[in-house]
């Protein structure tokens, strides 16, 4: 009988009931009463700071007032006009560093209006209805290719379709949604929400998705440029940054993104193997998601090892608190020195670090932790720049996502800026408006 103490990487450390509980909704949805109480706290600020803090500039005071006046579905339209993936953003946005951090009641009482949960209340209300809330304009006859059915591509495609253009999305994987489907922690988007959201979004009409069609051998940018009136690139970061430490190739050492994708696609989490001693290398959201989910799957000990101090950690305080509340231990100022073991990894050797004049250096002092599973979560990168001008490792864009190549726009994680769903949505949407203007001369 497998338990949390079983050595190695094995499935079934926890029973179905506990797994079910662990991977249920992180925050239960607000019911109508709760939503009314929460909505009553909003001050309807002038040029509200929360709106400024939202990358998609949702009119938050307005939608909250609509909830307060008993119109959650109208509130949802206010949200979706700005952010068609408002349902997912309500679940995955780091609101604690965006709208809710800016909320004046955070300043006043250290307790912001629960904007994220209110947004979910509104969007859930409308999405549970039959049909799609927006109408498509008359066909323009213009055709646009979108690469990637992640948040950026979907937001772009929806806006273009709404304007009457015909959109073909080329998606590398066999399902749409991008990181909403394959990334983010399972407990943030339960009940196949990512897939349901895409179905709902496609209700606008005029969008076709071709799956298993990555840019590459049989699909190249030049062909898209020739065959379509415009192209939007909304690819994700397909590459994973390498970890430069001996033993990196041992069995049991894997990329966090692959683990998360496998977990998200798993039909039965009791069948998903996980180590007894898991160590996650990194300090971002992916690292936290991998660490927390390992713990929730039943790993006995999960350690998140980050090379810099807590203040530098990309994961928000909220995410870190979530991790520690689930039993993940966070170590800072440590970096991997080597993975030891006889074949499979058995131990990780970590070295303490210090920052001297801004540069990170090992102190020479090391220690070992038992580790039968190590996840690398030290960042992802764009696989190919497709010959476009780059800004660092990402595709350079000017306002509204125009790239260096005529007829080609880009947005989302493949372009500079924060790699957040909500940022991707805003970039996809804005590029769509610009494409529309370019195609119609508007």
């Amino acid at each position, binding site marked *: 009988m497998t338990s949390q103490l079983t050595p190695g990487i094995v499935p079934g450390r926890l029973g179905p009931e506990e797994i079910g509980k662990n991977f249920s909704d992180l925050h239960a949805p607000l019911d109508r009463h709760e939503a009314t*109480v929460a909505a*009553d706290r909003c001050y309807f600020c*002038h040029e509200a*700071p929360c709106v400024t803090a939202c990358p998609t500039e949702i009119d938050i005071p307005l939608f909250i007032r609509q909830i307060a006046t008993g119109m959650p579905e109208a509130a949802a339209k206010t949200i979706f006009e700005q952010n068609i993936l408002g349902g997912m953003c309500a679940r995955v946005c780091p609101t604690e560093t965006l709208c809710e951090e800016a909320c004046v009641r955070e300043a006043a009482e250290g307790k912001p209006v629960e904007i994220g949960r209110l947004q979910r209340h509104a969007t859930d209300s409308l999405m549970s209805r039959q049909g799609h809330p927006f109408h498509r304009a008359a066909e323009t006859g213009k055709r646009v290719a979108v690469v990637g059915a992640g948040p950026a591509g979907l937001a772009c495609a929806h806006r273009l379709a709404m304007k009457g253009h015909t959109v073909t999305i080329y998606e590398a994987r066999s399902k749409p949604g991008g990181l909403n489907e394959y990334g983010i922690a399972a407990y943030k988007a339960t009940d196949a929400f990512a897939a349901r959201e895409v179905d709902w979004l496609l209700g606008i009409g005029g969008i076709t998705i071709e799956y298993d069609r990555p840019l590459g051998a049989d699909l190249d940018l030049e062909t898209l440029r020739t065959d379509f009136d415009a192209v939007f690139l909304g690819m994700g970061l397909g590459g994973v940054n390498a970890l430069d430490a001996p033993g990196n190739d041992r069995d049991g050492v894997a990329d966090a993104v692959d683990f998360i994708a496998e977990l998200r696609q798993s039909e039965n989490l009791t069948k998903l193997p996980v180590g007894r001693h898991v160590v996650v290398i990194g300090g971002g959201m992916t690292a936290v998601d991998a660490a927390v989910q390992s713990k929730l799957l039943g790993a006995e000990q999960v350690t998140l090892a980050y090379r810099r101090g807590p203040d530098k950690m990309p994961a928000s305080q909220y995410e870190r608190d979530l991790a520690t509340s689930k039993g993940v231990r966070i170590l800072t100022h440590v970096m991997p020195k080597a993975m030891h073991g006889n074949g499979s990894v058995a131990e990780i050797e970590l070295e303490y670090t210090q920052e001297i004049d801004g540069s990170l250096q090992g102190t020479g002092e090391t220690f070992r932790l038992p580790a039968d599973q190590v996840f690398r979560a030290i960042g992802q990168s764009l696989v190919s720049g497709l010959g476009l001008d780059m800004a660092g490792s990402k595709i350079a864009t000017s306002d509204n996502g125009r790239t260096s190549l005529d007829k080609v726009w880009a947005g989302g994680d493949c372009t500079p800026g924060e790699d957040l769903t909500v940022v991707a949505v805003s970039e996809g949407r804005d590029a769509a408006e610009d494409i529309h203007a370019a195609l119609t001369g508007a």
Partner: protein
Amino acid sequence: MADLTNDFLGVKSPNPFWLASAPPTDKEYNVRRAFEAGWGGVVWKTLGAEGPPVVNVNGPRYGAIYGADRRLLGLNNIELITDRSLETNLEEMARVKSDYPDHALIASIMVPCEEEAWAAILPRVAETGADGIELNFGCPHGMSERGMGAAVGQVPEYIEMVTRWCKKHYDRPVIVKLTPNITDIRKPATAARNGGADAVSLINTINSITSVNLDSFAPEPTIDGKGTHGGYCGPAVKPIAMSMVSEIARDPETHGLPISGIGGITTWRDAAEFMTLGCGTVQVCTAAMTYGFKIVEEMKRGLSEWMDDKGFASTSDFVGKAIPNVTDWQYLNLNYVTKARIDQDACIKCGRCYAACEDTSHQAISMSPDRVFEVEDDECVACNLCVDVCPVEECITMERLPTGSVDPRTGKRIETDYANWTTHPNNPLAPAAE
């Protein structure tokens, strides 16, 4: 701890907090519990004449207005006077009074506008040992259609006449309860005084429709698809009530007439405010109906604490204390110049002051790109709207400009002297300057 014992028209009560004539005082059970909970007195739910009692609707009687977090701000009702027999009420009153001799028990009465009706009921009320009576000339719904309640209260001549009958047939204090559904509250108050009333109590409820159901297109509360206006009460009516109380308190015709204040009193502070405007006692209903009898505990403790802070030994020390400061607009000092001041440390940057001032007032608040809000003294007329809409208490205050300084808005020096509209050069009726 300050002494809260109260003497109103010679009627003693352990404190000035009485329950108004209303559902909470409809029967012995409630009144005993109210006294046990600490209420100083009750005005028993209005008695009608001998005979079959009135009937109430069998659907909803109340409607409400809410503030944030469903806090009840206003309540309206279409309930009538007691629907229990006169005999039952009188028996219960006598029992309660004999068990609570130190508490005030006032009988509210509403019978037809005929002397014999009053002459018939008053001796029976007297037999109960009740400390006094309150004439219900205020009920705005139902009874008024039958020529009683507000139908009497809206005709000063009737008030005077009925009051006179009561003084003739009853030897204990007579309080006349006034309806606010009238243009000038001083007229019925004067009539009551002329009729010999010992006191007035006000306000009764205000004609109201609290809401319209947007599915059935009928007013709420809805009885089988129809609604009618009810009587409005609760915190929302307090400002109206206090204004009416102050009118009676300071009018030469009625000045000095004892007043029992009613209208939205919910906290000790509300009570104290009414009392400073001349109320010798206050009556509470909606607050008890919203929160239960226990709220009197907060009122007692709060009032006592405040009295201690102020050095008031008894309630009579502050009853009427604000009356001299209620005046007419024309006597307000036009040389009193204030400006809004924003405490930047307390400001949470919601911008409501800015929106209010910019959109609807005098464009006297500036907003910087980083959301610092500052008052522009050369535009600020000190209207107070920013203070009123600011969610943080004391964040925005009105500060008086010192004498001798210059008001940047008018360019005029601030004078020490008091000067009002009656002498202002812009006033065509002002006496010419020497």
